């Protein structure tokens, strides 16, 4: 069983994850189009009507902070940032994972001590609990939460939970380890086909599509 899930099933999961992600990017790409800026509007080249004073520059900085996610929702901003960092860092940098990668392909990423990885996992799970509690108690979140949202949260947290159990050798190690691999594979497969797809959507849309909130000057737009 363990051999199967770490063998063919793992390969299949990776394949589905990568091809699914690529498909999603392609889909987004085909639904949007490049908007060439061919004409310079009259006046665009002209300097601002009045010079911006040092004080105003400072005020603009304050205001752009205020408008940012961190300024508007500091707790959510910090928790979700940490959550996502751990989400990537813990599995990619874990020594155990790197050892496996090294054994299969002879390459390895930078790895972090197991202890640290354990801490990241705990932090991650704490964040997940925060999201869960939020989803259960905050009215505006309740209003848009469906069982699907809980499922997605569970899919994301499960590999960490099982990994945590495995590391601390809770319950039957072999079973827990198999569960860890399977839940990890489920998450990989789920990314391109569920709400977890926001991974691709976020980067694609906020960087490439122009809008009030885009990062930089997005030159693409949704096709109409």
């Amino acid at each position, binding site marked *: 069983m363990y051999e199967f899930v770490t063998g063919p099933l793992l390969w299949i999961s990776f394949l589905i994850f990568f091809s699914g992600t690529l498909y999603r990017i392609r889909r987004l790409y085909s639904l949007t189009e490049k908007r060439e800026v061919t004409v310079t509007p009259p006046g665009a080249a002209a300097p601002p009507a009045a010079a911006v004073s040092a004080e105003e520059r400072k005020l603009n900085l304050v205001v752009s902070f205020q408008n940012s996610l961190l300024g508007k929702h500091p707790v959510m901003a910090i928790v979700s940032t940490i959550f996502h960092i751990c989400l990537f860092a813990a599995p990619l940098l874990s020594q155990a994972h790197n050892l496996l990668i090294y054994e299969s392909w002879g390459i390895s990423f930078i790895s972090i001590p197991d202890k640290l990885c354990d801490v990241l996992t705990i932090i991650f799970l704490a964040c997940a609990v925060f999201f869960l509690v939020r989803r259960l108690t905050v009215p505006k979140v309740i209003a848009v939460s469906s069982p699907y949202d809980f499922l997605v949260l569970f899919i994301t947290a499960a590999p960490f939970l099982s990994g945590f159990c495995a590391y601390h050798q809770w319950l039957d190690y072999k079973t827990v380890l198999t569960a860890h691999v399977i839940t990890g594979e489920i998450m990989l497969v789920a990314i391109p086909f569920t709400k977890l797809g*926001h991974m691709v959507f976020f980067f694609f849309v906020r960087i490439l599509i122009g809008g009030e909130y885009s990062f930089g000057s997005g030159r693409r737009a949704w096709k109409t």
Partner: protein
Amino acid sequence: MNDSQQKKAEAEKTRAVLNHNQAKIKLCLEACASCSICAESCFLFNNNNHDPRFMPSYKVINSLGVLYKKKGRVGTEQLKRMQDLVWRNCVLCTRCYCPLGIDIPDLIALARSLLRTRGVCGVYPHTLGAPEEEYIMEWDPQELSDPDEDPDTQR
């Protein structure tokens, strides 16, 4: 045209709009992490006691989301509710913020188009001389947690 023929024609139009935008709707609805960060970017949400029914994502999920999921096959009651969501609870000021980049106003506009294919459009009670009280919505937080009161939240 008799009643059933008209209904059929309407359904056809709804499906045409849905089909034309299917891929985009799917991707956008699926990208929503239901994080509710969009809420405060809506001044109507802030002005109405943080009533979730003014939250941008709520408005999209419960109008376009339902229409998409049910392929436009929704009843009059639900249509009425959607009408409130996208016309009364939204002025399309186009300023909602989605951390994931979902173009919420675009989706609400799409919901409006879909509803129009069903003969539902914006009605502004105050312009018809209705008393102000009818226009102002009272919000009871309990209401949302009770599925019988508001079936739209349970999907």
